[in-house]
């Protein structure tokens, strides 16, 4: 390992933020679904993985990265809608573990489906032509694609925030996550809202898969470690909290990337240690409601 200069540190920080952006998106989808439906989607990593595959597939089909970024979340969100309507919905009110178990089984089917469709080796990816190269940030050259990842995440987070805070539908979602009974009494079909939220959550997972695909190996098992990592982010940020998801996502990304600079062997472990420390100090996470978790 060479000398550690301030500019190297800054570059590594940026790498961490780019990685954290993907974590933030993942945790955002997970938290959105949980906050509304109190369902932990154990197939979230699988939705991410399917998103990565479909992103590559649509890129090859349409020849345009931008098209694939539109089509992938739509397709993955559609899978999410079907899953909610026919698999998760029958389980509401039957104990909190059941949707979790069901989505766990679903992840098996999704992994195998991608093996059948694209082979067990996975598919090769490359950075889209218009986002190749590096930009000078003043302290060094940083890959353009990673910068784009940060920007895209910011756009999604902003869009979601506007949707939830400023629109009529967002108001219903916020009300529904606080008291579904009252919302139902007010004449709103809460089941449709839940369907929609599950669709949006999985669509975001699919989008993050498509965004992350050029930066990592795309194979049917890629979602497994991603699931564990997004759980870490959710536990650190506080379950059901959207700002918590974003901040913890970035923090986890930075911790991972900084550890891989100083002690590459411990990088994978570092984020779990972070989670353990948070559990010891603040079991409900940074932004979680106290008592929700313990």
């Amino acid at each position, binding site marked *: 390992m060479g000398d550690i200069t301030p500019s190297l540190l800054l570059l590594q920080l940026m790498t961490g933020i780019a990685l954290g952006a993907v974590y933030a998106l993942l945790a955002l989808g997970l938290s959105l679904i949980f906050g509304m439906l109190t369902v932990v989607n154990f197939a979230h990593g699988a939705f991410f993985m399917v998103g990565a595959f479909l992103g590559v597939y649509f890129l090859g089909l349409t020849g345009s990265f931008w098209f694939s970024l539109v089509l992938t979340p739509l397709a993955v969100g559609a899978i999410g809608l079907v899953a909610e309507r026919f698999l998760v919905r029958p389980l509401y009110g039957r104990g909190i573990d059941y949707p979790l178990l069901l989505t766990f089984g679903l992840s098996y089917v999704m992994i*195998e489906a991608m093996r*059948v469709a694209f082979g067990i080796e996975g598919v090769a990816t490359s950075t889209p032509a218009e986002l190749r190269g590096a930009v000078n940030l003043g302290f060094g050259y940083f890959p353009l694609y990673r910068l784009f990842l940060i920007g895209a995440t910011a756009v999604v987070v902003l869009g979601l925030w506007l949707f939830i805070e400023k629109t009529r539908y967002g108001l219903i979602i916020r009300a529904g996550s606080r008291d579904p009974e009252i919302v139902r009494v007010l004449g709103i079909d809460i089941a449709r809202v839940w369907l929609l939220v599950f669709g949006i959550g999985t669509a975001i997972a699919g989008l993050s898969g498509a965004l992350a695909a050029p930066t990592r190996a795309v194979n049917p098992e890629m979602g497994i470690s991603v699931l564990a990592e997004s759980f870490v982010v959710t536990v650190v940020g506080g379950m059901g909290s959207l700002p918590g998801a974003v901040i913890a996502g970035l923090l986890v990304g930075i911790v991972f990337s900084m550890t891989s600079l100083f002690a590459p062997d411990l990088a994978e472990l570092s984020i*779990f240690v972070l989670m353990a420390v948070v559990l010891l100090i603040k079991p409900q996470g940074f932004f979680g409601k106290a008592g929700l978790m313990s």
Partner: protein
Amino acid sequence: MDINRLTSAITRHRVAAVIVVLMMFPWLMPYEALAINILIFGLYAVGFNLLFGYTGMLSFGHAAFLGTGSYLCGIAIVSFGWPWWAAIVAGVVASAAIGLVIGFLAIRTRGIYFSMVTLALGQIVYYAFYKAERWTGGENGLRGVRVETIDLLGLKLDFVDPLTKYYVILAFVAAALWFVSRVLASPFGAVIVAIRENERRTAACGYDVARAKLLVFVLSAALCGLAGALRALHLSIVPIDSLHYLQSGQAVMMCLLGGMGTFFGPFVGAAVFLYLEDVTTTVTTHWMAAVGVIFMVFVLFFPRGVWGSILHWLRRHADKARVAA
């Protein structure tokens, strides 16, 4: 025939009943290796069931204990040349110790958070063993856990012979089952079931819920560690997959397929799971899709599992008969 009396007789002598069935098992299965696998994974599922079925804590990190049991048993033999029985003790003790640490952190959370946290903490154990290549063989797994003869106070048993191996392992499983049965029948067993039914009320009754949870977590880890240690002896290798998240999921699947919170359920689940796997993989390579679908069908329509549904049906039948009489 009085079904009620029969079921209550089986329940009273549940350990003996399950052992009698398991003694006949090698002749019911197509080959002995499958029977040994069912024995080992049955124990793994029993350990898991103690936590999930009886205490209501759904852990998704139990591979950590199966794997730790396997690795420590293997390392004791490969690197230190310990005798087989000491290696098993090493595996069990190490699993219990890891269980104490993970349990201490995880029981600070409840419900689905507990599932998420155990999953994440299980990953730590996976990476730790993966990186400790010098001891564990890293990605290739630990090889050469060779035990050919078992010396039992002068009596030499041929551990390569599958049938002998089966009965040696059965002896350990039987002891573990007896232990679990004793735990469940004890006042402590009543406390963990009370925690499952209503944690707050149990605490209000004056029981130390946190301590009971931690203790049952450690017991569960130790049982899964024993299963792991026996598996290392059986396979002569320890694959890194033993620690994988999907291995944790397997415990969940077996337990639910068989019937969570029942004494025989985990063994039924392990038998159904492994037998189906054995049959399915001869026809198709897409076993994971099949098991995923089967599992979802059980979650949706038969959450009691195979054994749990049979029990439920028998009890209803008996109740009806009583009402008629």
